[in-house]
């Protein structure tokens, strides 16, 4: 049975390991603290993350660096319009047997790695994008009637370009909902740009060392789940989530006017888990309302559907969420 001392040690270990991981990533990644925090939150929460930004902002570098820092199998899938689901999941081929016969053999696709980088995921067709659905949610793949379990930890990091760009396919809602967070990668500041140039244009390059093993990651994820959360915080999460639905009581005016569909219960799970992970990464034992507020934009922005009027008026989900956060009180009325 876990004692208070064990709990304290567990938290200390969490902070030590995540501290090492952060410092290792910082050797390669310049700035982008918000993105890195989001990625780590998703990793510690045991879920997936979608990074959105224009090409060249270091999304792929970050994911690759993370994969290098973790001593786990890593695969990168470059999504293109002609990419097929089998290219991701794997395929069954006919192999010769030693006795001269033939048999069907399943060749695993890149999805079977522990860390999967789905680069420019919105460049593939929705059919191919949907190939990841089962893997991301169930951590298993069913091909030809046979179910194949994926290993642990399992972490999908997808990047996508903004939808306005040519040759992109919007991700289906069901697919989007599988991502714990959607992180928008901002353009670096001038100082960060200088640092990027300094680091990337000289002869020597920084190599990322492996600092965490697969089991380490799993234990960190277990610690996050043990972080207690008070009922009033959970109550806030519930009220916040219900407020995203225009047809439910308590929805702010902006939601009622501009939102077509609110977040699913998976959104509440995402809020709570992300809040817990954030609290731990911040060195606190207990998640509070402020943690929920901090992760709400990343956890909800891909789960809220703007209606036609909202699109026409240029409303963004971030603006809606901002209004939600200001309208929903921390304490019940």
């Amino acid at each position, binding site marked *: 049975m*876990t004692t208070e001392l064990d709990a304290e040690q567990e938290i200390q270990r969490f902070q030590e390991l995540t501290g090492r991981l952060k410092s290792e990533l910082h050797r390669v990644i310049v700035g982008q603290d918000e993105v890195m925090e989001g990625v780590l939150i998703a990793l510690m929460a045991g879920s997936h993350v979608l990074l959105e930004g224009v090409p060249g902002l270091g999304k792929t570098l970050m994911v690759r660096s993370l994969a290098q820092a973790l001593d786990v199998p890593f695969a990168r899938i470059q999504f293109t319009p002609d990419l097929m689901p089998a290219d991701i999941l794997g395929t069954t081929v006919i192999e010769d047997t030693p006795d001269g016969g033939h048999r069907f053999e399943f060749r695993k696709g890149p999805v079977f790695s522990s860390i999967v980088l789905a680069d420019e995921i919105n460049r593939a067709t929705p059919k191919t994008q949907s190939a990841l659905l089962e893997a991301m949610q169930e951590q298993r793949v069913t091909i030809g009637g046979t179910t194949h379990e994926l290993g642990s930890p399992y972490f999908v990091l997808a990047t996508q370009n903004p939808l306005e760009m040519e040759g992109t396919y919007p991700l289906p809602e069901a697919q989007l909902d599988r991502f714990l967070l959607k992180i928008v990668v901002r353009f670096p500041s001038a100082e960060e740009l200088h640092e990027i140039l300094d680091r990337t244009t000289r002869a020597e390059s920084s190599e990322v060392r492996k600092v965490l093993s697969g089991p380490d990651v799993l234990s960190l994820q277990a610690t996050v789940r*043990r972080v207690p959360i008070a009922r009033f915080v959970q109550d806030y999460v519930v009220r916040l989530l219900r407020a995203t639905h225009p047809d439910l009581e308590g929805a702010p005016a902006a939601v009622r006017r501009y939102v077509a569909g609110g977040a699913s219960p998976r959104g509440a799970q995402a809020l709570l888990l992300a809040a817990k992970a954030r609290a731990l990464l911040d060195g606190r034992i207990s998640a*509070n309302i402020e943690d929920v507020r901090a992760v709400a934009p990343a956890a909800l922005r891909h789960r809220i559907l703007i209606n036609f009027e909202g699109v026409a008026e240029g409303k963004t989900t971030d603006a809606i969420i901002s209004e939600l956060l200001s309208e929903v009180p921390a304490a019940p009325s």
Partner: protein
Amino acid sequence: MTEASSQTALLSVIRAGRRRLVLRRALHELDTRLAPLCPLLALGGGALILSQQVLLGRLVIGLGLAAGLITIGLSLRRARLSEALSAALDESFRGRGALGSAVWYLEKGPRPLDPFQALVVAEASAALSNFDLKEALPLGFRIRHGATLLSALCLIALASVSVEVPSSSLARLTPEWAQVGAPRLPDQVFGASEEAPLAPEALLLEARELEKFLESASPDEGFERLASLERRLADAELDRQRLIEELVDRGNKLAGKGPLERLAASLQKGDLEDARKALEALAERLSDPKQTISKEELAALRRAIERAQAEVPEATGQPEAGSGASPASAEPSSRETGEAQEKDGESGAQREQNAKQGRKLERLGGRGSEKSQARRELSELDRQLAEAMRELQQDRESAARKFAEASETMGKLAQRELTDDQKRELLEALRKMKEKLQDKSRPKEEQQALDEFRKRARGQGDESSEEEGRQGQGEEQASLTVSLEVAPESALGQGSEGGPGERSAEGNKSGSGTQPGKEHSPELEGAATAALPTQGGDRVSVAPSQEEGGDQARAVAGAARRGFTSAEYRALFQEYDSAREEALERDRVPSGYRTRVLRYFELIRPQAPVESKRP
């Protein structure tokens, strides 16, 4: 810090936090839901109280308060205080601590606490040293609604205070006021005693205040107040007349050659200011060692003052001759009446009886003890003169001081007189107020007709003054024509009685005269007497026959010629006065009319035969 002690510290924070949260919630409810309700109820209740519906007003305020308490109670019952407290504490730290969660775990968490929860509690307890509950849970009372609520509370307090009338104030209320439950204006406006005559300045002030009050009061209240003011105005004027008479009497006694010659002459003329100056001059003369005063002068001075003192018993505190009861005896009686009113359990009927008894005593005692401020000052003047005389035989300087004091007293007496301007202002104010009240109480159609009439009347030019005088004269004839003869008092204006005048029933005499009338009306004989039975025959028990009417008319005419001092007129007046008293006691005469009757009889009261008292 041990686990137990840390939990104890946190629990105390929880208790204090809950109390503060309850207060905050109550204020919030007041601030939002009850904000529009409170001022309305307070205003309604206050208005009802001010309009003498005290019980109803209290009920409204009570209902408002009860509704407020119930609303707050229900909101607190609905409020999930544990969640609210934890969330509020959590909010206050904005993610920097875990106090909110710790409070939650302690209040609602499982027992024993999960190791992680226990860690949270321990961490929060350690951070308590820097914790300030007031900072963490501000009451959040917004200014906008706060101001509204504050005003509501002030109104409630005001209404409550206005309900609490001190028993001493109740005792001072005259029975009429107590019976009708009329609203009281502050003492400085109406005076502590309603019947007490006021100083001229106070009368003017009261008239101005009354004008403001009448704008918001009902016509009945207005007439009541107006009648009260008129009554005291008449009393004040009568007081002044009596004072002048007595001073003239003093002047007669002091008359003769000597240092007091000028003083005597001034008093005989009724010129109080000049009398004051005479006394001042005498005091200066005595205080100046260079000026001599002969033995003859001293002897004359002594003789004059002794003469004056010998015939003025009240100066030494003796009861006033012929008044039936002394002010000294009337004063305790009225005081006893007041005390009796304060006693708990005394019935209203008993109180009324006491009040009637008090009024009777007051009437019997002449002007009543509290009314005779002028008389007291006159007594003080006599005393100072007597002392000055005594001092004169021993210490000249001390005598000079006494004369100077007497001069000051004389100055006070002079100040009690209403100036002509003040009279005019007061009369004008009263006339306007009466008009306003009449307008107010009149039906709309009648009011419109009257306005139209006034408009047309204004368009007729300036012929009013002479005409009005004639109209007023005619009116007086209808009752008792002698009043204009009586009359410096006629200057106070009977003018508004636009009734049964023979020449003009529409007359509105403005009372512009300041001197007594010089001649009688040609219709004096007979006509006035004939008018009496038709006017008041059903109320006044005196129903003169045709023969008696002639005698009475002759008595009145003769009295008028001799200045109303004849024994015949005195007997006639007593007969009428007793009839008047009976009628007023018996019948329910409206206050305004009662005042007029009383005042009228004061005006025609027989005068003292001054000449007969001359030495």
